[in-house]
């Protein structure tokens, strides 16, 4: 066992740092640093992706032949860590991390040739069409129907919680092409041009007043069968492949460490309850220390998963354990951020941050009151309640782990 990064890994880290120092503009840094949720706004995300594309670093986890970087898991972890530390906005995950692997694993040669380069370049900006009104955690119960009609599938239905659908030109969807004995059967994985006739995107306003998610209405949308990934009716296999693709790559800890750094920095500048600096307040200092300790344990847990995956071992419960713990700490840290903000944490001032979408509640423009950090705090707190809900609620994750434990 060895906890130190190797000389090669350190050299790689330095290369990454130099790249980030050179390429990040002030505007991009601000966009990464003042996010009001975990999502960057699409405009900056695309601008940053263009820079990465030039360098060939958009999709580290992809195979090299499709444009991946050929990095080890450790290098990928280092990249994420440094990227977050430098304040760069994240590349939108819907294309590169979610749809890309599906195409790579189950797509046709034509699909790979057409979609993957455009995904890397950012020409295609992707959204996801999975959840429905009656199908959240129980995704397999989805009802959005696609009927075969010659060379096309005709899709009618409704999708929810589609992040950035309002800014996307392509979407990957799960639709029902047949109703069979098990709900997982008869589902098809389909790529839809979001400019197709019959596609309507309606903004969903989040509790924080932002339009990040959307509803998508599909009304007899004609989609060529050539856009089916895998076989018709075999979409569940594709969707599961996608979930398994990034094993060993979970990296919550780097972002959480930066969050804590920001909060500590802020707390060293404002007054605490006992008259001194907030950072010197015993209860607050205790809470920060506990959060740091928790993040440290999570970080090593991530290292261990990475090391095990590298050695060909990867306990099935790991992704669910990571998701639960990562999001619990993420939410806990938004609580600390809100606590640090004190009374200014009550003010609704999305204009102080960089929102991932249009803001729909009444709010000011330009100037804001109090510190920027305090203005962002309630946005983050409210937005991050979603973290324990999306991608399988933490209750569902515990069900999954219990099953793996043989209970």
């Amino acid at each position, binding site marked *: 066992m060895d906890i130190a990064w190797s000389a090669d890994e350190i050299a790689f880290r330095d290369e990454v740092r130099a790249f980030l120092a050179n390429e990040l503009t002030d505007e991009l840094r601000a966009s990464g640093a003042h996010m009001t949720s975990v999502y960057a706004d699409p405009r900056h995300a695309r601008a940053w992706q263009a820079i990465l594309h030039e360098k060939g670093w958009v999709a580290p986890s992809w195979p090299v032949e499709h444009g991946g970087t050929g990095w080890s898991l450790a290098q990928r972890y280092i990249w994420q860590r440094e990227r977050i530390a430098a304040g760069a906005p994240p590349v939108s995950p819907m294309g590169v991390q979610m749809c890309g692997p599906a195409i790579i694993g189950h797509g046709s040669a034509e699909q790979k040739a057409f979609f993957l380069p455009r995904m890397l370049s950012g020409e295609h900006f992707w959204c996801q069409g999975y959840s429905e009104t009656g199908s959240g*955690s129980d995704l397999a119960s989805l009802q959005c129907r696609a009927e075969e009609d010659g060379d096309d599938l005709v899709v009618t239905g409704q999708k929810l919680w589609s992040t950035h659908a309002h800014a996307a030109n392509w979407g990957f969807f799960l639709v029902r092409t047949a109703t069979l004995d098990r709900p997982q059967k008869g589902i098809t994985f389909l790529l839809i041009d979001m400019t197709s006739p019959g596609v309507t995107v309606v903004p969903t306003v989040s509790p924080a007043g932002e339009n990040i998610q959307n509803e998508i209405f599909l009304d007899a949308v004609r989609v060529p069968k050539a856009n089916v990934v895998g076989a018709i009716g075999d979409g569940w296999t594709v969707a599961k492949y996608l979930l398994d693709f990034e094993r060993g790559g979970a990296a919550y800890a780097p972002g959480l460490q930066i969050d804590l750094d920001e909060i500590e920095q802020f707390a060293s500048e404002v007054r605490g309850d006992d008259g001194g600096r907030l950072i010197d307040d015993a209860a607050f200092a205790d809470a920060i220390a506990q959060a740091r300790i928790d993040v440290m344990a999570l970080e090593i847990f991530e290292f261990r998963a990475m090391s095990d995956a590298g050695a060909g071992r990867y306990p099935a419960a790991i992704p669910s354990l990571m998701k639960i713990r990562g999001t619990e700490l993420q939410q806990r840290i938004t609580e600390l951020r809100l*606590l640090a903000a004190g009374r200014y944490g009550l003010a609704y001032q999305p204009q102080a941050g960089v929102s991932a979408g249009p803001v729909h509640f009444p709010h000011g423009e330009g100037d804001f009151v109090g510190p920027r950090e305090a203005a962002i705090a309630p946005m983050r707190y409210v937005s991050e309640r979603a973290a324990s809900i999306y991608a399988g609620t933490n209750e569902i994750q515990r069900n999954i782990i219990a099953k793996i434990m043989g209970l």
Partner: protein
Amino acid sequence: MDFTFTDDQRQLRDALRGYLQRNNGFSVRTANARSASGWSESLWRGLADDLGILGLLVPEAAGGVGGNATDMMVVMDELGANLLVEPYLETAVIGASAFGAGHETELAAIARGDLRLAFAWAEAETRFDTLPRDTIALRTTVGWRLDGRKIVATAAPMATHLLVTARIGEEPALFLVEAGAVGVSQQAYPTIDGRRAADVTLDAVALPDHARVARGAEAIERLCDIGAAMLGAEALGVMRVMLDDTIAFTKERRQFGQAIASFQVIQHRMVDMYMQLELATSAVYRAVLSLGASPAERARAVSAMKVTVASACRFIGQNAIQLHGGMGMTDEVAVTHYFRRATVIETEFGSADWHRRRFAALSRAA
């Protein structure tokens, strides 16, 4: 010892509940909150004229109802359950408690609905401390001169007058300031619960002699304790709705072929929410019934309540969202609005940490 409501209190609650259902339904309330002013003049008038509750704590001699703290608790609970955005707490609770003999005019104006107040006590450098630090009142030949800056004064943008804390030398005091007075400027903004607040700058504001409404630290602390206690009562209504909505939603919402309320983990979570609500209710009763006790006993009961209520607001609020799943993350369902109100209540008049420490200090002194 008696913890039952009187028939009058039950009637008051029922009347208020019916009135608000008719006049402050969810869509109406949301529209009011998002209007330019952020509040409803007609609803305010209704509270005064139709219900008479603006004067609930105003003595009968001054045109009010002369009600007691328990009556007010009943009212605040219902206002919480209906997410009222109008400045009732600031006016009918804090205002009515601030004015004593010599201020019958103001008390009567409160009861009539002509006065809308904001309580500007917080400053950038005081965090949750109750007393003023950088807002200074100076004696002038005709009265007072106020200078300073107040932050996040809730309801200030919709107030006719501000109750401003300032210190005269070392002595804290409370002043009544017209919102439009020369030297008063506001930078207004919404709060995350759909209300309005402002940072208020006081620049050589000239006030008449009788603008000093109260003096001494105890007077200000008493007002903050009354405000916190009644905010706790409001929280009970807010939390009750979240629990009821969550129970209803989980009984309706089906996943994997069954109502999610049938899953044991979900059931136990809602049991714990219910438990938190019962404990918070108990803490609020004690705080409200202690408002007339000695300052130390009152403060101890209020701080204990605020810690208990903050924890209940967080637990019930977060779990209400969690159990609503994706639906909890849209602005369309009422529960997200209650969640944000509960989040604000958590730290209003002091965070749980602040009150726990105050409680410990008071317990040590006792």
